[in-house]
Structures are given as structure tokens and as C-alpha cells.
């Protein structure tokens, strides 16, 4: 494949050898890509001085099919997000978002997924403390839906019978969503969600961002999402950045 240019944002960056960096980029056209930015720590000509975590811009990639590590030929930084480092809650939430995006394995043309991530980071950059959890959890639920494994909320995840609107429901991660009363008896691990939680999930998956009433509600949604992702991610590794955010240890 020839040299391509695509919108991209930096999900993870770490130093490689004396002068280079390896980056994980979310791109609009080519999913999540690992790239080598040769000389990025030394030269500012090709990559600018702000090729940092959560920076956004236009990446020039030398994409070779089958390679795990592609070559970054240039990166025009258009937006950086220093606001994410001005609050530990925002910083850890952005890291958790980035970790989940990398683990959700987006390999192809995914413009909607790219915009979900971009807008979530924009929102987090200036988010008040009580908006950090709904913004992050909401973006991840929307992303989960966009990638095709949104939880069933309107009908039973097991028998597909319509569920009564405006009511709470048992929720099974293994089954993939809410259950009717009959199927719930055969799913002993199901967690009972109150009506407000079901509505919040529906709103988030649809791309809307309702707020949450209390800290307890926020913690419950963080836990629910972690359990759901843990059930559906391809590998069994834990989510360490998510755990740091959820436990709020650095705030």
C-alpha cells in the first residue's frame, strides 16, 4: 500500500531506543495501528514537538499489509489536550478510554468509532468532576454498540421477548444484556439493574450523554462496564488503566 494520510490520534506512546517512539494510533481510515516514529524524540521537523499522548492530527503512514509495526513518516499535530493532565480524574479516565479502545481491536475503516473517541477526549479535556464518569462510560458504551456488540436492552438477550419499557431488569454479561424474568431464573449471575440504569445505558448506546445522579450510581456504572468488557474482550488480560480510574486512587 502506498503512503497514506489519515486523521489520527495518539492512544499510547512510549520511547524506543535513544531517539524513536512507538505509538498506538487510532485512525479514521485504518483502525488502530502501531507505528514506529523514527527520531521522534530528537527531531521536531517531521512530527512536531507535541507528538504526545492524546494528540490529534494528520498522520502519514507507510502501511505494509501483514506488518504489526507500521512506519510513521510524518504527523501534523492539529490539536493537543493539555487539559487532560490538569485533573487526575480526567487523566485516568482518558487513559482508561485509551486502554479499552486498544483492546476492542478496531482493525478497519472506522470513522464513527474514531469520532466517538475524539469527541470523548474533547469532552474530558474540560469536563467538570461529575461529568467525567458519564462521558467516559457513555463513550465506551457507544463504541461497544458501534462495534456491534451493544447489550440487548429493549428485548431479552436470551429469548428476544420484548421487555417492559421504563422498568429495571436483570442484566447478564454472559447472555449479552437484559433478561426477561423467565430467562433470569436460568442465569444465576445476573445483576439487577434499576430502571434509571437501563435508561442511561440506552441513552449512552444511542450516543447521548445523560448525567448521573450520584457517585454511587457512577461507581455502579463503572463496575458494570468493566464486567461487560471483561466478558467480551478477546484476551483475558485485566484492564489496568481502567482499574486505576475506577478505584480513583490518584485523585
Amino acid at each position, binding site marked *: 500500500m502506498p503512503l497514506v494520510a489519515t486523521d489520527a490520534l495518539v492512544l*499510547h506512546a512510549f520511547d524506543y531506543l535513544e531517539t524513536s517512539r512507538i505509538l498506538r494510533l487510532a485512525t479514521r481510515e485504518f483502525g488502530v495501528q502501531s507505528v514506529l516514529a523514527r527520531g521522534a524524540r530528537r527531531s521536531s521537523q517531521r512530527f512536531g*514537538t507535541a507528538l504526545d499522548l492524546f494528540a490529534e492530527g494528520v498522520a502519514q503512514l507507510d502501511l505494509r499489509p501483514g506488518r504489526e509495526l507500521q512506519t510513521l513518516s510524518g504527523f501534523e499535530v492539529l490539536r493537543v489536550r*493539555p487539559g*487532560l*493532565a490538569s485533573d*487526575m480524574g480526567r487523566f485516568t479516565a482518558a487513559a482508561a478510554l485509551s486502554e479499552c479502545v486498544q483492546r476492542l481491536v478496531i482493525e478497519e475503516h472506522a470513522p464513527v468509532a474514531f469520532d466517538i473517541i475524539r469527541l470523548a477526549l474533547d469532552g474530558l479535556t474540560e469536563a467538570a468532576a461529575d461529568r467525567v464518569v458519564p462521558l467516559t462510560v457513555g463513550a465506551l458504551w457507544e463504541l461497544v454498540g458501534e462495534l456491534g456488540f451493544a447489550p440487548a436492552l429493549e428485548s431479552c438477550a436470551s429469548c428476544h421477548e420484548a421487555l417492559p419499557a421504563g422498568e429495571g431488569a436483570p442484566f447478564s454479561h454472559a447472555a449479552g444484556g437484559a433478561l426477561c424474568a423467565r430467562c433470569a431464573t436460568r442465569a444465576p449471575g445476573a445483576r439487577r439493574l434499576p430502571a434509571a440504569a437501563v435508561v442511561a445505558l440506552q441513552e449512552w448506546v444511542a450516543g447521548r450523554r445523560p448525567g448521573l445522579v450520584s457517585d454511587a450510581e457512577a461507581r455502579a456504572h463503572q463496575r458494570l462496564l468493566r464486567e461487560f468488557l471483561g466478558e467480551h474482550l478477546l484476551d483475558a488480560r485485566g484492564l489496568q488503566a481502567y482499574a486505576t480510574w475506577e478505584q480513583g486512587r490518584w485523585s
Partner: protein
Amino acid sequence: MSAIDDLTTELARLPGIGRKTAQRLTYHLLKQPADQSRRLAQALVTLVDTVRTCTRCFNLTEAPLCSICSDGRRDGTLVCVVEDAADIAAIERAGEFRGRYHVLGGRLSPLDGVGPDDLTIGALLARIPEDEVTEVILATNPSLEGEATALYIQRQLAPLGVRVTRIARGLPVGGDLEYADGVTIAQALQARRDM
């Protein structure tokens, strides 16, 4: 595995050295006088056996205290916090700073699983009253993770009543404004000062 393969494998683990270069270095060492290769081997053994971290600032040293911490002419009330020992050499080259240092051993990174307990933040907090420190300069890198680390340390230091400052960011000396990127110019404008 033969001695040649063994050394090639070990050399290839070094940064910037691939398998082919490692092989060339191995054959070069075999060609040169044996004494020269023995001196290299001895230097490596000595390095590993004698270099450790300073008990006060975590800089690299061969003595319990590094040369900066044991220098009575340095101002012990002024402490510059850096991510790695290599950063000390960079600041020392500037020749402007006469205080002492504290090496964190990295920066906070949730994505890499590096938290406060993995850094020497606890030792820094203990140094403040012990060394009667009056100012802490946070010289972590101006990256997002470096900024978050500085913020975290600033919050931890706040109850101790010590002055906390952050190194400035902006245009490089001798640089050309026309070729500076927008992010750097924006930060230079934010950090402008009266003349």
C-alpha cells in the same frame, strides 16, 4: 550455545544493536588483543557491582551518597525533581542550578501500570522536613504524563507548606519563531513575563 552465539545474543539485547551488528562486534572483540577484551569485560563487571542509587536522591552513584548530595556547596533547601538520572546530566550541563535533585524513576502512566508507589514520591515527601527543603522544582518532562506526575506531586506536597514551582516551557534559544509549531508558541505566550 557457543561462546560466540552467547555474546552475540547478549549484545543484540542492547538498544540500537541488531543481530548483525552484534555479530560484527563479537568478531571484532575476538580479533583485538585479548587484554583489551578483558578490560571491557572487567569494566562491565565493575559497573554492575559498584553503581547503585544514591540513598538520598536516587541518582546513580558508586558511594552511598552521589557527588551532588555529598557536595556541601550545593543548596540542600532547593530540590529539582526529575524523571530519570539522565535528566540530571542535562540540567547540570546548563550550569545554572546549584541545588540538589530527586530522581523519581519514571512518571505516572496508567497505561503502563506505573503508579505513585512505583516512583520515589514517598522518599521525596520524607526529604522535605529532613533536609529543610524550602522549594521543590518539578522538572518532569513537558508531556501529558509528565504534567500529570507534576500535578500529583504538587498535591502531595501542598500540606507540607513548601514552595512548589514548575519549569517553564516555550521557544528554544536560537530558534526561529517562523518555524516553531503552534503548540509551542501557544505555551510560550501563556508563560510570557514582564520585562
